[in-house]
């Protein structure tokens, strides 16, 4: 492999590139008069950008000293004749990485660097790999025209398994300690503060953000992130985030950054980054213990990536998912991220083995036939049941406005007052037993059948339950559609042996001995409670 381009050797100290170029003079002209004559639109924009950068980075120095705009960007010794080695991003298509055919050979630090927000900056030498070829030349960057493959020199803290000294191809810049950036580097500190001004247009300037510096340390366009897809965007509480071709970097107000890549990052961006339901990441990628895939944790949730799919679980659903042991628990891996239901109240998160519905601070899982029935009925928005509120020990699922009861492979639905009383009485283990069918409606009155009894509830009224013989007589007289209307009491047996129940339009009395039933007209002075007594 010979990735380094061999070029005829030259003496950089006398090469044309070491002298001030036409571009240099043109840009200096622009510095004197912002409106140049006879300059193309593209070159004008490039030059104007450089002037703008200079005015941003070092306005006073630029104004007061007889220095060129390019020198202000690239620092001292930026010409080929200056004797220093060029930055890798200048010669490596913008990548702040060692080019192919070179290796990390050593490093030095610069104290209190303005390019690293006042902390130490590290210059890492990429030396020619033994066996590769690389001719000494001058870089052709707009102002970083330092040497390439000329200085046969080695700092010597990295990759000491490689013997000998070869030419420095170029220099990588980082703001993190080299031994954490590349484990092949040792910790022996070498310092050269004389290089404090060295820089290049392809590197972050003195106003770099924490995200800029993290991206720099990862290699800029040569990193696994690829190229930026958007400008840095503000996030909540003084933080920020930026999207790249293959990932996302976030930063908090305290300057800490987190890196997300691949599908996990893509999903985070879809969920609106730190401004969305997840908030800021609190970890980067981590392996899932006990199962395949990766996850990243966030302030209010988690994103899990598995088999090329990433989904976020956040809000109350995340707490519930954690209680259920996450991806290794009963719900398995998430298949779609937490999504608003559309009723403005809650959300649903789907998993391989079920779903979590959440509203307010409450979240509950549903699975199997129970989930299928709930969603067939229209879920929280259209079923009339609202959100799940409690999973009963019996297996019944209680909702804000109803109950789902699994009976064999079927799931029965009870709603409103009937469901409330059913649940209060202990559900299927209570006196009513299991419902025989879904709750229905007759003449505007809710009705649900159980083994040997039927519950009724008029709108806004409590549920009452009738059993034979009163129930049979009630149904024989057209039930709720008849003149009696809805029950206003349960059926019951008096001490004298009569079966009784009151209704809106009267009462039914059944003689226990003869089985004879009669309907009693309403007495204005008798209330339902009196009948019960």
């Amino acid at each position, binding site marked *: 492999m010979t990735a380094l381009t061999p070029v005829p050797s030259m003496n*950089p*100290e006398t090469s044309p590139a070491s002298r001030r170029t036409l571009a240099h003079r043109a840009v200096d002209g622009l510095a004197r008069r912002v409106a140049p004559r006879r300059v193309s639109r593209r070159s004008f924009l490039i030059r104007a950008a450089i002037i703008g950068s200079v005015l941003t980075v070092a306005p006073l120095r630029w104004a007061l000293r007889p220095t060129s705009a390019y020198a202000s960007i690239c620092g001292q*010794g930026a010409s080929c*004749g*200056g*004797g*220093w080695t060029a930055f890798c991003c200048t010669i490596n298509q913008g990548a702040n990485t060692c080019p192919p055919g070179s290796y990390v050979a050593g490093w*030095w*630090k610069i*104290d*209190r660097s303005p390019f690293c927000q006042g*902390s*130490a900056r590290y210059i890492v030498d990429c030396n020619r790999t033994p066996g590769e070829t690389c001719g*000494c030349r001058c870089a052709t960057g707009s102002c970083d025209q330092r*040497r390439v493959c*000329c*200085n*046969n*020199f*080695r*700092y*010597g*803290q990295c990759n*000491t*398994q*490689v*013997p*000998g*000294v070869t*030419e420095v191809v170029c220099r990588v810049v980082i703001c993190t*300690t080299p*031994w*954490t950036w590349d484990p092949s580097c*040792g*910790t*022996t*500190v*070498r*310092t*050269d*503060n*004389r*290089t404090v001004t060295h820089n290049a247009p392809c590197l972050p300037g003195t106003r770099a953000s924490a995200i800029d510096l993290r991206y720099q340390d990862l290699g800029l366009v040569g990193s696994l992130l690829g190229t930026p897809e958007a400008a840095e965007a503000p996030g909540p509480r003084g933080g920020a985030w930026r999207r790249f071709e293959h990932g996302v970097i976030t930063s908090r107000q305290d300057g800490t950054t987190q890196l997300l890549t691949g599908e996990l990052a893509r999903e985070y961006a879809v969920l609106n980054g730190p401004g969305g339901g997840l908030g800021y990441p609190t970890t980067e990628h981590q392996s899932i213990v006990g199962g395949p895939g990766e996850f990243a944790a966030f302030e209010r949730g988690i994103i899990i990536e598995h088999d090329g799919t990433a989904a976020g679980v956040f809000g109350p659903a995340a707490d519930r998912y954690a209680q259920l042991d996450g991806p290794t628990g009963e719900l398995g891996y998430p298949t779609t991220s937490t999504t608003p239901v559309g009723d403005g109240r809650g959300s649903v998160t789907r998993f391989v083995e079920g779903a979590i519905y959440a509203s307010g601070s409450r979240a509950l899982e549903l699975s199997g036939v129970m989930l299928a029935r709930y969603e067939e009925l229209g879920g929280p928005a259209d079923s009339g049941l609202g959100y799940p509120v409690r999973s009963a020990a019996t297996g019944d699922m209680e909702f804000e406005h109803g109950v789902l009861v699994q009976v064999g492979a079927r799931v029965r639905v009870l709603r409103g007052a009937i469901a409330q009383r059913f649940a209060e009485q202990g559900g299927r283990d209570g006196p009513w037993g299991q419902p025989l069918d879904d709750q229905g409606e007759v003449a505007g009155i809710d009705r649900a059948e159980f083994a040997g009894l039927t519950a009724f509830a008029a709108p806004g009224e409590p549920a009452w339950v009738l059993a034979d013989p009163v129930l049979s007589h009630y149904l024989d007289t057209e039930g709720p559609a008849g003149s009696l209307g809805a029950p206003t009491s349960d059926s019951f047996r008096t001490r004298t042996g009569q079966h009784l129940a009151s209704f809106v339009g009267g009462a039914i009395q059944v003689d226990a001995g003869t089985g004879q039933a009669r309907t009693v007209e309403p007495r204005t002075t008798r209330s339902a409670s009196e009948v019960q007594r």
Partner: protein
Amino acid sequence: MRLTGHGLAADLPGGWEGTISLDRGEDAFALAASGGVVRPVAHLATFPLPGDRGDFGSGAVDVMRTEDAFVALLEYAPEEADTPLFAQRGMPRRLDPRAFTSRSLQRGIAGQVGWQAFFTEAGRPFCLYVVLGDGSDTHLLVRKVEQVLATVTIEGAP
């Protein structure tokens, strides 16, 4: 003048000056907290050494005259001893003037030539870096450097 420190010593002939020190950088302590280790650096020169200079002599070599020489002896982490880079045994005290080139410099400066060697002595890994002010007169300057290198002693690691 005898120069000693950190297990290194040199008897400087007349006209030489030098220092043996640890890292002089301002961030050294902060760096130590994150795992960085400062190790001895000896600078020997035939000219006044400026205070603001890099470990490999930047800032110092800028002010060298053609008749001057600069020597840097820098220690590395003990675990690097005898690795392929530091495989050479013993500090070179006799130098080949022909090995000095204008390309073997940390930073190319017109007229200057340099030479660099990594080695292990007394179980301690080092880099020896020499810069001569005049590449056209290496024989004389190399002899000058050899005089001072002959006095350098390296004690074994404690």
